């Protein structure tokens, strides 16, 4: 009944490695540990440029863990340890001489819970610009980011109000505006709609489709419909318990169309059909 039993047979399966020319990020992760706990193994995945890559899979299979290791957000967790490589535009971001702070400036992130700063809407969006000591026209840049995030019309008259005073959906769009104000190359989104109502969710989905013209997007979602609606490529993660703990791994990745209508892996098929979750 639980996903654990189902996952067992796949223990030794490793998703085929596919090298993509247009990849913004090319991750070849062999293991991720939290302390002694092996959270993720054998996950090779490419995030293609100007596409949306969706991560799906049952709870606890390491989707967030993998996503966060793509911009070294997981460095905040002292027990985190990654074996493998994550290439971002040709550089391994886990190499010795890489400054994770710089990595994060190029690879933006939007989180599950909207998390605007307790400052004005304007300052929220301008935050990254100030951080980067941007010398140009702040107003213009902030307006542009808010427009791209589809929030401009709603907030243009109250830019000085606190960002926390907005509704949940607006807050999440504000976070997106904040993330894109500095024009990062890649945008990582970890279940950005799971705290929102259906209407706000739709707005953000449309926004993502618009954003992919200029950005590369990777999104974790629990909602398969959402993945089908927005993702170009879908990566399905699963979990196995053969090595003691519950270890997540990339089970199958490919065109969204293919994953949902012609999955190659049995596990994928069963997950898609709603057999477990």
């Amino acid at each position: 009944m639980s996903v654990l039993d189902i996952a067992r047979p796949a223990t030794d399966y490793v998703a085929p490695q596919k090298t993509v020319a247009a990849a913004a990020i090319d991750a070849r992760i062999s293991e991720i540990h939290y302390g002694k706990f092996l959270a993720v193994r054998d996950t090779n995945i490419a995030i293609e440029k100007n596409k949306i890559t969706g991560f799906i899979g049952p709870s606890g299979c390491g989707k967030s863990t993998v996503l966060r290791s793509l911009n070294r957000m997981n460095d905040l967790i002292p027990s985190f340890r990654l074996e493998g490589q994550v290439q971002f535009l040709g550089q391994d971001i886990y190499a010795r001489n890489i400054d994770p702070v710089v990595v994060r400036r190029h690879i933006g992130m939007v989180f599950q819970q909207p998390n605007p700063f307790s400052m004005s809407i304007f300052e929220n969006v301008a935050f990254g610009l100030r951080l980067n000591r941007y010398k140009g026209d702040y107003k213009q840049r902030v307006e542009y980011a808010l427009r791209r995030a589809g929030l401009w019309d709603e907030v243009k008259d109250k830019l000085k109000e606190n960002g926390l005073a907005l509704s949940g959906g607006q807050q999440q769009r504000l976070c997106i505006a904040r993330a894109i104000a500095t024009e990062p190359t890649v945008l990582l989104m970890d279940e950005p709609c799971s705290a929102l109502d259906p209407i706000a969710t739709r707005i953000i989905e449309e926004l993502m489709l618009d954003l992919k013209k200029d950005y590369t997007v990777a999104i974790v979602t629990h909602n398969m419909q959402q993945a089908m609606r927005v993702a170009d490529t879908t990566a399905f993660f699963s979990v196995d318990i053969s090595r003691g703990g519950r270890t997540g791994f990339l089970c199958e990745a490919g065109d969204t169309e293919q994953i949902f209508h012609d999955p190659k892996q049995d596990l994928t098929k069963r997950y898609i059909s709603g057999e477990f979750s």
Partner: protein
Amino acid sequence: MSSTDFKQDSGRSASRPPTTGDIIADRVFRGGAYAAGALVVLLLIYILWEIGFRAMPAIERYGFGFLTSAVWDPGQEKFGVLAEIWGTLYSSVLALVIAAFFGVGVAIFLTQDFLDARLAQVFRTVIEMLAAIPSVVYGLWGIYVVIPALRPVAGFLNETFGWFPMFSSSFSGPSMAPAVIVLAIMVLPTVAAISQDAFSLIPYKTKEAAFGMGTTRWEAITKVMIPTATSGIFASLVLGFGRALGETMALAMLIGNSNQISWSLFSPANTLASLLASQFPEASGIETQALMYAAIVLLVISLAVNVVGTLIMAMSSKQKVG
């Protein structure tokens, strides 16, 4: 109450109405609780009345002039507390500046992952212990440790930077500087504790947002954490200020009890609380009334600060931290 009895049913039932004793106990207890609640309100009113009543003649006689004159001369019945107000505010503000620097620093140190949890707990205990040392012990320590230690430093500062008003007089011993240092140490735990609360109230997702934007640890602290915790930090400062205003013994032992107004840290000064401590036992007649007036001044300043602090605390606990 009533003699309700539902006892027509099962004979086995042990249920019965509360006894008269229970009902009386209930009334007495509720009454007592209300009385205890009212007691605090009455206590404050009584304190205000008791002190205010005795201060009345001096208030009538000296009026506002009491606040703007710096003479305390029982012989000629001339009284004014400007010097004491100055000393109280100056020492408290300076102490607060130091305590804010160290207290907020400690709060950041303890909440922003500079230490592992166990060490942080040890360190937190150390800071809390500072609050457990009685005021007189700080006074004693001030006399025998702080003043001698300050002497060479103060001499140097006075000789080298004598043009600067804060160092403009030579150091003789009991004076503003040792008083401020000791006061700062006494206020530090309050500031540190409440600022720590303010920092730990910030949700993890805010920190994540900051790092996600590519901040270094310090950018996260200065650009996000501190601004978000501002109202809590401010409340800690206001409450710390309130504590500093009312502190008596350590100051009476260290400040030199001389009613004069000076910017210099090395000049003796006086505070309202130490004026009360040193003059009250021997005062008679109009001087007692003047001291009661001084007590009212202290009370008003300290109540005002504490009311503001309590209100800020109430507001900041409702604040949106994200």
